[in-house]
């Protein structure tokens, strides 16, 4: 950069001397000094534009007015922002904007927070001189979620710049020119985009708005604005819930928030309506004669306590198992595992994190030490290369995906193994190995990097494994079908990178030989000295592990196996802790199948739907004598339960979530609802069993956590709220004490001529929770089987036709979606829609090291079928 960077610049604005360290625009300089300059097209998240001309200012020695948003400050510049001439010009510009603006403010949802309205109120004109008729454009209601009113549009192009330059979706553009210009998605009506709604955020007027809260409130009627954390994925975006009459009217992002800085994805912005769903559970239920009937809290709590006590006395604590929830707060999960360990005397605690995240993290931390995956998401955009493996970050963790797109925009390299749809417009360097040869490719990468980078000697156990790997580029070409020159280009780009990052999705750990692949990826991470990010599907997946909701972990991610840690918690809890490691979630299913498991306590999880081979899981759970479920909806698992408690949802309670960066953030109660938080229900049950777990509120629970967990030591809500709870907090990360790396190479599969069922991880859904959010269902209404065009052709199927998808465990009739980006071996299906989940058709084996389910070898058959007339959507 120039020398100017280091010198101080002085600028005089309206008589105030402002000293600046580096060149900024006049607008930024003025704002830093608290001087307001009106703007419309300027937005701090967007590229500068200089289109609306409202920020015109007088600059001495420049004869004409200048746009403050684009003019860079130079030393000694004298600027005036409010003079009669400027006021005249601004009034004139506003008069032009109002030629076509309909002034339907009484009817417009934006009124009260409309930037145009505010400016006209300040600068005028009170009356326009134009007699011509206003431009007419009917309001577009073709889209289920976003409504466009192009009469109100003032052509600031903020939405277009947001969509293209920040979100990277490029779904909308300015169409036509001059007075006919308007903003439209490609189809002209319905959007075909990521539905992030960030165009809605930046629109200064009422031209692009959300339909969810249309005409249901005025901005000034919103008294409660609660800053909390999004309930969906592990990124942990800050959201502001705007509430009226105890109902969430709107969820918006906040500029300057740590993880998402003013951005949201479709789930975060449009997925909040489940909170007010009429399907929510309202009362406890007890199963009588095979039917769930409403009961009082007292009945349900005392029955639960009595039955659990009986089973514990008769069969021992090891006959009881608990499933914790990645959707519940740290406080809920802490109390849950404490209850399981001291009231029921068992370590049989696990969660759906076992389907991948837990095993992957433990594996990587065993090699690199605790916190190896706790990397700051925003830092991704500053990497000079990002290697993406095992899943599409832009659908699993959309806001993290944006950072990868930003990295590409800044000139970084995106390296992808397999086609990553959400990054395809960002010049990814992609290598797509043949099916079931990913291992060979990873071995090839390790070999190539080993030769280029050499071994440093810092992690001998890993180096011992690396030394054994020798796979040449030729072998990669022969077995993976990747041309040698492409592979060499890929490895060269990777090895030349100075600040690389690896983004790892669950497809790796859920594939055959998952733990061996994890070793190879760890080796790449080690050789490249990279940072590794684990894609994280649920909001508090990390938090529940840190709270000790795992069969082999105590709070603070401390291994149960060490007597020293057990002692610490035994002293704190004044109760013995079993030294026997508990059952993983899949071992619980096996144990239920063999009748060894007598009771289950399930908090905020739906294992019958969210674990592979749903039918077998259902059958196993039917064997269990007594099941308690706490949830906000009556799930498939809830229907099997003997007692069901209605829990409070994310919006109705206080607490904390730990995101994938291990940043702890505050969840705040936004709306009131009768009922109890998950932890409170548990503490009531516990009290009835004679074990006191009394807390006055979430904060008191957290105080106990920070008193005894070595990881969370001395952490307070106050620090969390200030944004200081960034890993490693003030605690002690645990250093790895690893003797050897355990891994499992898995079995090889010969995919010739077969089709395999694979799990689609969609952008618009998350578990079954999102199917209770009407807006998300409108965007992605039903389960579909996605196949490649050539599979479609072979069966003469086109999009919308019905197909029977069958595996060894069952079959489903589904509409087909032809996707020309898919390969010819895969049938993609989501696991979100009731009775239509991919997991109902999938069997699994368990990787002995990560304990994660391997689901990549489910052969599937397709047959064309006919949709009955009654099923055809109107």
């Amino acid at each position: 950069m120039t020398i100017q960077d280091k010198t101080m610049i002085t600028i005089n604005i309206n008589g105030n001397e402002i000293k600046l360290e580096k060149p900024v625009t006049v607008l930024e300089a003025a704002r830093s000094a608290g001087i307001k300059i009106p703007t419309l097209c300027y937005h701090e998240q967007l590229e500068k534009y200089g289109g609306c001309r409202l920020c015109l200012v007088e600059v001495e020695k420049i004869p004409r007015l200048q746009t403050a948003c684009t003019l860079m400050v130079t030393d000694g510049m004298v600027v005036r922002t409010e003079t009669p001439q400027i006021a005249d010009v601004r009034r004139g510009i506003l008069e032009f904007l109002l030629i076509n603006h309909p002034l339907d403010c009484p009817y417009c949802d934006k009124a009260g927070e409309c930037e145009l309205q505010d400016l006209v109120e300040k600068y005028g004109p009170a009356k326009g001189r134009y007699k011509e008729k206003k431009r007419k454009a009917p309001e577009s209601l073709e889209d289920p979620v976003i409504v466009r009113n192009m009469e109100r549009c003032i052509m600031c192009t903020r939405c277009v710049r947001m969509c293209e330059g920040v979100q990277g979706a490029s779904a909308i553009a300015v169409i036509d020119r001059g007075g006919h210009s308007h903003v439209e998605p490609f189809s002209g009506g319905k959007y075909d985009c990521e539905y992030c709604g960030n165009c809605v955020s930046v629109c200064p007027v009422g031209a692009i708005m959300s339909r969810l809260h249309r005409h249901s409130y005025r901005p000034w009627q919103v008294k409660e604005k609660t800053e909390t954390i999004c309930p969906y994925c592990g990124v942990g975006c800050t959201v502001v819930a705007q509430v009226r009459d105890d109902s969430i009217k709107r969820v918006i992002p906040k500029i300057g928030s740590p993880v998402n800085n003013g951005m949201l994805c479709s789930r975060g912005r449009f997925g909040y309506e489940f909170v007010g769903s009429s399907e929510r559970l309202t009362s406890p239920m007890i199963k009588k004669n095979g039917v769930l009937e409403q009961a009082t809290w007292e009945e349900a709590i005392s029955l639960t306590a009595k039955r659990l006590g009986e089973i514990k006395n008769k069969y021992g604590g090891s006959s009881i198992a608990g499933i914790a929830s990645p959707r519940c707060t740290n406080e809920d999960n802490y109390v849950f595992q404490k209850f399981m360990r001291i009231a029921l005397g068992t370590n049989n605690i696990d969660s759906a994190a076992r389907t991948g995240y837990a095993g992957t993290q433990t594996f990587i931390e065993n090699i690199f030490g605790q916190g190896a995956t706790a990397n700051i998401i925003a830092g991704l955009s500053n990497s000079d290369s990002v290697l993406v493996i095992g899943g599409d970050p832009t659908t699993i963790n959309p806001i993290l995906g944006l950072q990868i797109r930003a990295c590409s925009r800044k000139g970084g390299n995106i390296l992808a193994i397999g086609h990553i749809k959400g990054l395809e417009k960002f010049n990814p360097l992609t290598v797509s190995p043949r099916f079931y040869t990913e291992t060979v490719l990873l071995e090839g990468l390790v070999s190539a990097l080993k030769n280029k980078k050499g071994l440093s000697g810092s992690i001998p156990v890993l180096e011992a494994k690396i030394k054994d790997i020798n796979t040449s580029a030729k072998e990669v070409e022969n077995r993976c079908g990747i041309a040698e020159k492409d592979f060499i280009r890929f490895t060269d780009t990777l090895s030349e990178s100075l600040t690389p990052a690896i983004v790892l999705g669950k497809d790796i750990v859920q594939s055959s030989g998952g733990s061996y692949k994890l070793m190879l990826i760890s080796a790449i991470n080690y050789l490249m000295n990279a940072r590794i990010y684990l894609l994280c599907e649920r909001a508090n997946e990390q938090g529940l592990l840190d709270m000790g909701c795992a069969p082999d972990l105590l709070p603070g991610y401390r291994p149960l196996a060490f007597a020293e840690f057990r002692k610490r918690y035994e002293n704190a809890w004044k109760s013995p802790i079993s030294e026997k490691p508990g059952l993983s979630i899949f071992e619980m299913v096996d144990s239920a199948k063999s009748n060894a498991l007598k009771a289950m306590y399930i908090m905020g999880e739906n294992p019958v739907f969210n674990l592979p081979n749903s039918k077998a899981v259902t059958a196993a759970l039917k064997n269990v004598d007594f099941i308690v479920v706490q949830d906000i909806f009556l799930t498939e698992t809830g229907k099997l339960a003997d007692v069901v408690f209605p829990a409070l949802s994310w919006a109705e309670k206080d607490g904390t979530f730990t995101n994938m960066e291990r940043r702890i953030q505050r969840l705040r109660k936004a709306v009131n609802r009768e009922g109890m938080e998950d932890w409170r229900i548990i503490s009531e049950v516990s009290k009835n069993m004679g074990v006191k777990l009394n807390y006055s509120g979430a904060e008191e629970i957290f105080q106990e956590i920070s008193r005894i967990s070595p990881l969370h030591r001395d952490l307070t809500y106050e620090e969390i709220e200030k944004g200081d709870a960034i890993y490693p907090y003030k605690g002690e990360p645990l250093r790895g004490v690893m003797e050897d790396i355990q891994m499992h190479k898995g079995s090889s599969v010969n995919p010739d001529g077969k089709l395999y069922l694979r799990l689609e991880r969609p952008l618009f859904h998350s578990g079954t929770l999102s199917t209770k959010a009407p807006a998300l269902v409108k965007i992605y209404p039903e389960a579909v089987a996605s196949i490649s065009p050539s599979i479609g052709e072979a069966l003469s199927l086109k999009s919308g036709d019905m197909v029977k998808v069958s595996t060894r465990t069952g079959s489903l009739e589904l509409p087909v979606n032809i996707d020309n980006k898919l390969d010819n071996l895969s049938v993609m299906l989501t696991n979100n829609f009731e009775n239509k989940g991919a997991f109902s058709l999938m069997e699994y084996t368990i990787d002995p090291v990560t304990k994660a389910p391997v689901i990549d070898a489910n052969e599937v058959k397709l047959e064309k079928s006919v949709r009955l007339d009654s099923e055809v959507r109107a």
Partner: protein
Amino acid sequence: MLNEAAIKELNEIRQKYPNARAALLPALYIAQREFGHLSPEAYEAVSEILGVPKAIARGVATFYVMYKHKPMGRNIVQLCTNVSCMILGAEKLVDFLKNKHGLEPGGTTSDGRFSMVIMECIGACGTAPAMLVNDDFYENLTEDNIVKILERYK
């Protein structure tokens, strides 16, 4: 989808420009030629090959009036009605074509043979009125010779 020759042509054009967006205008002309007009499929084909988002491609194309934004006849008559042409009777020619031959500005004849577009100045003021039929230039038009000229286009 585009045929192989057109795809090859598009890729060759792409090589002449520093980035894909710069190649949009000529690429859109090729797609227009192949698809008849800039249909959604035409934008999608260009987007697929150049890697430019289809919404952006459409935004660029709609800025320009000289692309065919809707289906058009086999031959395009582009008649100028700017000052010189107007003074020398271009508007009468417009009425003539409309009344006698069913060819309306912005419209297409029912047999799909002709579409007519009113042009801004085509730089033939000295020999006005003037028009283009497809890529052919005609000047000093009268009601008599315009019919004869149009006869040549089937």
